[in-house]
């Protein structure tokens, strides 16, 4: 069995390490070793399969740690985030693909799930993310952009928003409008990889065959709702994500305004982007259901980008 080494860089490693190790008791199929040395050597970066960096720790040790960003493919960051702007600034500055908002037990469980999914070459999906009994589930296909908002309202009508604040449903519709518009207009490519509708005026209706139509799966438990928007082209790349995810400025290009991913990131509690190049792009947006907007706004946020060839 291969030994997977995880390098944890944090002032709190003495308390975090035992808790993380304990979580792996339930994964006997994975042999894992956590290290958190007092002095960091380049070999620690190279020999570790995962580097988990406390952003506060990085800010105190920037000179010593600046080369950690040469290992972006194995790096994840956790940070105490009080608002979306802080999250956006960290992603923008570091180009990291995994950022965990720190909140005690939840975060450690998420870090464990991330490590397991990476080792097993799987994506996070709604099954990974659901932590309580499912109370509702739906699946809708969108083969046309015509009356998209009405289609979205129909898709969500069986889900119950009575225990959420008034604007929650509107936020959900906003997120789905952006994600599905991207899936319908920006995703489709021809056999040579040329984008078919990316530069098209968004007033022009797109109709696609059912086989390639993007889908929306909604899974709901008592505390959260998980939206999964998939397109079956897999044309989104990390370069495009790096350009638009944290920009927040209107683009003058033809086609879309260049704000969709940024708006989704700003609204989501958890945003997961799964990329299987040439096959699939999936946006998973997790929203926790709260009666009070204040609780919704102050819940920790996280962001994850997985790039895999699954087949």
């Amino acid at each position, binding site marked *: 069995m291969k030994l997977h080494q995880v390098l944890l860089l944090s002032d709190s490693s003495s308390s975090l390490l035992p808790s993380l190790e304990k979580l792996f008791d339930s994964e006997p199929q994975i042999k894992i070793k956590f290290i958190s040395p007092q002095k960091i050597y380049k070999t620690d970066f190279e020999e570790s399969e995962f580097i988990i960096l406390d952003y506060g720790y990085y800010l105190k040790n920037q000179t010593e740690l600046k080369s950690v960003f040469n290992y972006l493919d194995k790096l994840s960051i956790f940070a105490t985030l009080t608002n979306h702007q802080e999250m956006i600034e960290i992603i923008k500055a570091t180009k990291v693909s995994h950022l965990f908002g720190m909140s005690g037990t939840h975060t450690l469980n998420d870090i464990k799930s991330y490590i397991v999914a990476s080792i097993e070459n799987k994506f996070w999906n709604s099954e990974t993310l659901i932590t309580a009994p499912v109370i509702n589930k739906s699946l809708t296909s969108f083969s046309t952009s015509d009356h998209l908002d009405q289609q979205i309202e129909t898709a969500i009508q069986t889900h119950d928003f009575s225990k959420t604040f008034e604007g929650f449903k509107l936020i959900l519709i906003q997120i789905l409008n*952006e994600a599905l518009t991207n899936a319908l207009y920006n995703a489709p490519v021809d056999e040579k990889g040329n984008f078919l509708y990316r530069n098209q005026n968004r007033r022009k209706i797109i109709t696609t065959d059912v086989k390639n139509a993007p889908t929306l799966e909604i899974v709901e438990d008592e505390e959260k709702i998980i939206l999964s928007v998939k397109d079956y082209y897999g044309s989104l790349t990390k370069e495009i994500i790096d350009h638009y995810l944290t920009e927040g*400025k209107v683009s003058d290009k033809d086609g879309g305004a260049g*704000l969709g991913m940024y708006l989704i990131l700003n609204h989501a509690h958890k945003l997961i982007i799964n990329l299987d190049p040439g096959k699939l792009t999936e946006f998973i947006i997790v929203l926790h259901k709260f009666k009070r907007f204040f609780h919704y706004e102050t819940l920790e946020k996280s962001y994850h980008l997985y790039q895999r060839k699954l087949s």
Partner: protein
Amino acid sequence: MNTIEMGQLTLNIEGTEDTLFVTVMGSINEDLQIEKLTHLTSPKIIFDLEQVKMINSCGIREWIRFIEFLGNTVHLEYINVPQIVIQQMNMISGLLTKNAKVTSFFAPYFIEDLDEEKQILLNSADIVNFKAPVINTNIDGTDYNLDFDAIEEQYFKFLKR
């Protein structure tokens, strides 16, 4: 009154030579066409946004283009701005331009004793040092305090522009 319909968006326009009142209803999205609004010229335009349900990314772009078309010298006011639009103004720089101000807007409050939320219309002039005003209400003869239900620094960010 003049009504302009563009897809899911409707604008009702009335007013005088000096001031136009524009009630915006529905979704501000890609259906917004500036070429249908080129006759809207006035030194002052007041937009009532209370009935705006949503503004998506294309709508943000088209609205910014519309405001740019109107020019820097026109004085713009937004009244009755709903929470979903306030959130977008706080997220996207450029949505609230220098020649525009938000005069009144809705903010979330919560009545702990009744476990109930309320959208309260606030005047921007009543926000001092980015602190939410204290609101009390009387329901069926009982007085209640309302808690401001957002993070003040974030919710009032648009007032700093």
